[in-house]
């Protein structure tokens, strides 16, 4: 189990140090700083073993979070915990930065006491935590005894993520399907690897203890229904369903039901949370196609032409498009011409960055650049890193569709129809690269 948890700033100074077990000595803090943060060659592995002690670290901007243990723990669990910890901190005080951590160190220690006990992860549900760890000082005077006992029964009870007696005038829920699409494409347009990792994030403002059921166009479910001979035509359903490679759920989802019937049913926490995470690799809709054309003119000149084509319904608008064209390390000057958007040579990043604010589907746009090179002693050829792209599109590149989200609350007097539901799809680029 986790023996201790440290937070460092970029210089390696310790901001937070919480040791849960005796087998972690005082020098463990320094060991990580010396061997990882200050290491000459950058340490790329997230797990480092130093003197029979394992350090698991994640980095958020300039902040290092390191969990340390002497035991043979489940590394995935530790990282899951660290990410959760980041989420909790973000939920409490926003961006994780040195300043924020310094300003909230009391709160962080309080949180650390709550979410880890003797190194064992405890309830890390932000919503639940917020009921008893607050930033407004001691709330004890306002809290009645009843409320306090309610917290206890909730935290220790079966449904630890939701308290009883929540009431909303308007029962409302927001469902966001957030996907990031990753691609590596050859210069000829052949897909070398592609996958989508997606999340379903739900924001729920529902009264009571509602029972929810979430349905999407999962291939297995659709096929099963198709066999059952429901209204859907079998051919059509096959097209619209997607094959999910793997998925994980929030703790509120009843896994036994998912295993047996593949139906996703749950009592949701109040507020925002991530309902599920999934990954698909088949039949991905690639929103953009990048066509590079690089021509070397002698030793001192390089001509680059890049065409991007949007490949989705013309009615949809992609946003925040950014194409990053790497330039050789001996670039001495760049001239760029583009029809749409703005393009600029960024010397500090060794790349030409081309930004387009908006672009409709089934359109294409083009940039051409002339790069002047300085002759060098080095015989090494330029490695030609891939052209990368960023964008945001209002649909799910995996093809995932929310079919329904039903809400049942038998005790209170509202039905599924009374709940106002919002669904939004956002597809973002992950690592979206085309070789040139």
């Amino acid at each position, binding site marked *: 189990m986790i023996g201790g948890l440290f937070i460092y700033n970029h210089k390696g100074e310790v901001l937070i140090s919480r040791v849960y077990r005796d087998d972690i000595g005082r020098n463990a803090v320094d060991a990580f700083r010396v061997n990882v943060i200050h290491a000459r060659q950058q340490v790329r592995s997230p797990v480092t073993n130093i003197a029979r002690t394992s350090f698991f670290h994640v980095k958020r901007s300039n902040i290092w979070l390191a969990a340390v243990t002497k035991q043979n723990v489940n590394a995935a669990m530790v990282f899951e915990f660290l990410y959760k910890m980041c989420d909790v901190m973000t939920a409490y005080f926003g961006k994780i930065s040195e300043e924020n951590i310094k300003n909230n160190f009391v709160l962080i220690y309080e949180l650390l006491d709550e979410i880890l006990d003797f190194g064992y992860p405890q309830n890390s549900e932000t919503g639940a935590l917020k009921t008893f760890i607050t930033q407004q000082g001691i709330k004890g005077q306002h809290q009645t005894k009843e409320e306090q006992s309610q917290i206890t029964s909730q935290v220790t009870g079966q449904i630890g993520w939701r308290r009883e007696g929540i009431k909303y005038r308007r029962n409302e829920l927001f469902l966001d399907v957030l996907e990031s699409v990753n691609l590596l494409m050859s210069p000829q347009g052949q897909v070398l690897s592609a996958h989508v990792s997606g999340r379903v994030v739900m924001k729920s403002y529902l009264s009571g203890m509602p029972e929810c059921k979430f349905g999407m166009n999962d291939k297995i479910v659709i096929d099963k229904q198709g066999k059952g001979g429901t209204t859907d035509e079998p051919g059509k359903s096959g097209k619209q369903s997607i094959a999910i490679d793997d998925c994980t759920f929030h703790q509120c989802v009843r896994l036994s039901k998912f295993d047996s019937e593949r139906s996703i049913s749950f009592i949701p926490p109040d507020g925002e949370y991530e309902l599920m995470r999934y990954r698909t690799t088949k039949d991905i809709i690639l929103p953009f196609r990048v066509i590079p054309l690089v021509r070397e003119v002698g030793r001192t000149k390089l001509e680059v032409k890049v065409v991007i084509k949007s490949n989705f319904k013309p009615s949809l608008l992609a946003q925040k498009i950014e194409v990053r064209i790497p330039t050789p*390390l*001996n670039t*001495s*000057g760049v001239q760029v011409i583009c029809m749409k958007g703005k393009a600029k040579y960024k*010397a*500090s990043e*060794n790349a030409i960055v081309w930004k387009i604010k908006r672009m409709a589907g089934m359109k294409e746009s083009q940039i051409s650049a002339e790069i002047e090179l*300085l002759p060098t*002693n*080095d015989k090494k050829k330029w490695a030609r890193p891939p052209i990368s792209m960023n964008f945001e599109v209002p649909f799910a590149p995996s093809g995932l569709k929310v079919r329904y989200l039903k809400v049942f609350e038998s005790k209170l007097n509202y039905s599924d129809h009374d709940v106002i539901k919002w669904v939004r799809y956002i597809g973002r680029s992950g690592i979206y690269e085309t070789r040139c």
Partner: protein
Amino acid sequence: MPAVSKGDGMRGLAVFISDIRNCKSKEAEIKRINKELANIRSKFKGDKALDGYSKKKYVCKLLFIFLLGHDIDFGHMEAVNLLSSNKYTEKQIGYLFISVLVNSNSELIRLINNAIKNDLSSRNPTFMCLALHCIANVGSREMAEAFAGEIPRILVAGDTMDSVKQSAALCLLRLYKTSPDLVLMGEWTSRVVHLLNDQHMIVSSASTDLQDYTYYFVPAPWLSCKLLRLLQCYPPPEDGAVKGRLVECLETILNKAQEPPKSKKVQHSNAKNAILFEAISLIIHYDSEPNLLVRACNQLGQFLQHRETNLRYLALESMCTLASSEFSHEAVKTHIETVINALKTERDVSVRQRAADLLYAMCDRSNAKQIVAEMLSYLETADYSIREEMVLKVAILAEKYAVDYSWYVDTILNLIRIAGDYVSEEVWYRVIQIVINRDDVQGYAAKTVFEALQAPACHENMVKVGGYILGEFGNLIAGDPRSSPLVQFNLLHSKFHLCSVPTRALLLSAYIKFINLFPETKSTIQEVLRSDSQIRNSDVELQQRAVEYLKLSSIASTDVLATVLEEMPPFPERESSILAKLKKKKGPGAVSVNELEEGKREGGELNGGGERGDNSAIASTPSPSADLLGLRTGPPVTAAAPSAGSLLVDVFSEADPATPLPESNELFVCKNNGVLFENQLLQIGIKSEYRQNLGRMYLFYGNKTSVQFITFTTTLNVQSKPVEPLIEGGAQVQQVINIECLTDFSDAPLLNIKFRYGGALQNLTLKLPVTINKFFQPTEMASHDFFQRWKQLSLPQQEAQKIFKANHAMDTEVLKAKLLGLGMALLENVDPNPENFVCAGVIQTKAQQVGSLLRLEPNAQAQNLGGRSVLHPACSTINSCVDSLCVCCGLRGEGGGRKVKQKDGSGASLPSLLFYPQNFSRKNCTLAVSLEHSL
């Protein structure tokens, strides 16, 4: 040097550096550098000419970026351009960039060399110095090639300024150090010597500006030190007067060092001590003035307790060399208490190390016990970095100066106990060598290891020593009920499971030795060997040992066991393996190895040992006599030795017990006695003698089972006395066969054996090992006689020749023994080539007598045994003899040879009837096998 003017401040560089320093993360730093690089690239693009200042600034920035650890692949040209500038600062930056960044194979090197040449030939001393510094800093071979001719000229030119000369001298020294072949000393040495009265570059540089200079009341300390060091490069002066003056000087230095300090400043004492230490090392270097040496030693003794750590260190170091001198050895010894104290109390590990070195160096017979005891007690707390060396030193001292062996054994066992991890293999090998070679300590050693093993946690090395010694000499302490055989075994076995594989293998060997030493433990040990964890061990070596030992213990009779598992013979005298190890280890520990070896000669009575391993039960039987070997090794070999490959199969497969040895007859070409046949039922031994054409053969039929053989009959196509029809279980009957050779023959007589074992009828047919060469009568003849006859026998049918490859390295003694075994006379000093073997003999049959000659021409280089064995006219059967001989001499029959290869190739050791440490098994076995083959 011209002062740097204010305008040269290079603000841009300062801004850039402060930007970099303010970066909060590595990423930010890289971004800033990329930006700057792009900026510099755009500036260097060549659209418009840059002025010297900006060029210098950008080159500086590039240099800074390079020093931050980023690759720079441009800007070299600009730096070279700076070299031709007339401004000092620009030139300086250019040279700086080049000495840091330009590699020798760059295309620019010609431009650079040109620029340097220009500067060297300029009249400006500053520029000359810069160029010289650059040459020295780069110091590459190319530089040496380009400028080796030029620099001496600058050095000796009359109009060169002193500072330039100094630079030139240092530069030349640097080039001389990197490529002495290019810097030709001869041409200019005399002129340099003439100019500065000294050829040594350090001195020349120093002497130019260090005369008449007093530094904190010490006159010219650097110069003095350098001069003293220079003198150490030469042998002591021959001339008496010069020598007298030198000794006088040295005495003065020693006297001066004794004077009370003139200043309390640390520089004063440093300078004084520096000269003193150099003087002492010169004294040590001369090593001929006893009173100086003793004085030096005494003065160093004062430093031993100085409060300055560095001085203590230096004193210990110098003392170490003093201890090796015969004159001052005694004087050094008087400081033993101080040194021991230093070893225990010094805070700095390097000083402790020196103290340990000194103790080691000053050790002799008189103080060995004390020093070894102190080192041992220190070892418990010693720093990890010096432990291994300490262990080696203790081991060597204990061995070298051991007066009684029980002390030696105690010391080493203590050593293993205290610092087991640091005790290398060599150390415990050595103990065993010595224990085996000295009868008088064996009992004591057994008792001591037994006691040492009783500690609940023993080091593995201790278990190894324990296993070996108890396996060999456990019987010496078995009388005591507290260390009865079973107790010994249980003690060893309690450690078994905690040990590594090699140790376990050694322990298994110890167990089989136990079976031999104490028959009462046999069942217990067999039980252990039979357990799944042994006989089905996943480690091949362990499994093989377990299987073989189990079989060996159950099959072989006690006599056989006793022979196979005989006590190890003494090791031949060799260089101590520990000493060899210490020699291998670099560092101050090896300083006094020469002296050690001398010491070893005087303390030689202990050095019975050598590398164990060349010895094994078989190989150790020193006599080359084939007969003896054949008799002794016969039975056990058939049980386990690899050469008898087919037999090995026999032992394990129950199916057909009657497989005769295919190559057994070849074995008997050169010998008369041995085991003809063996399976799990029956063993047939042979003893035979031949005189002229008559022979008598004794066949021994041994019943290996506990059941009797009924209706035992043998039939032979030769006359034989009938054998008794009944062989009791475990009994042996004898049969005598008289043989007479009537005429030459090619097929050996066949022996048919029939008997009933249990209910089953067993039938065996064997070839009797009777070959024509048995009837050889050796003949002596002189050289010319031999060659006359040799030439006469030139007809093709009179000659048989065979060229074959030897499987094993040729051993003259072995070959001789084999040729003698063939029955012919080995003629010495007959063949002009001493490598060749020449034999002569007469074959005696009843019908005729046939003389034959043999010549064996070994070709050592090609490992060929190019045997041209001219034997006998018209006697075709001799050919088969030649074949057999070939087989014996090296070309082993297929079965045996291949078997060996398999065994060797698999990496596993051969069936080990030998008792040896695991590490040596491979070597040993090939040795044993080769001997076995040649029989």
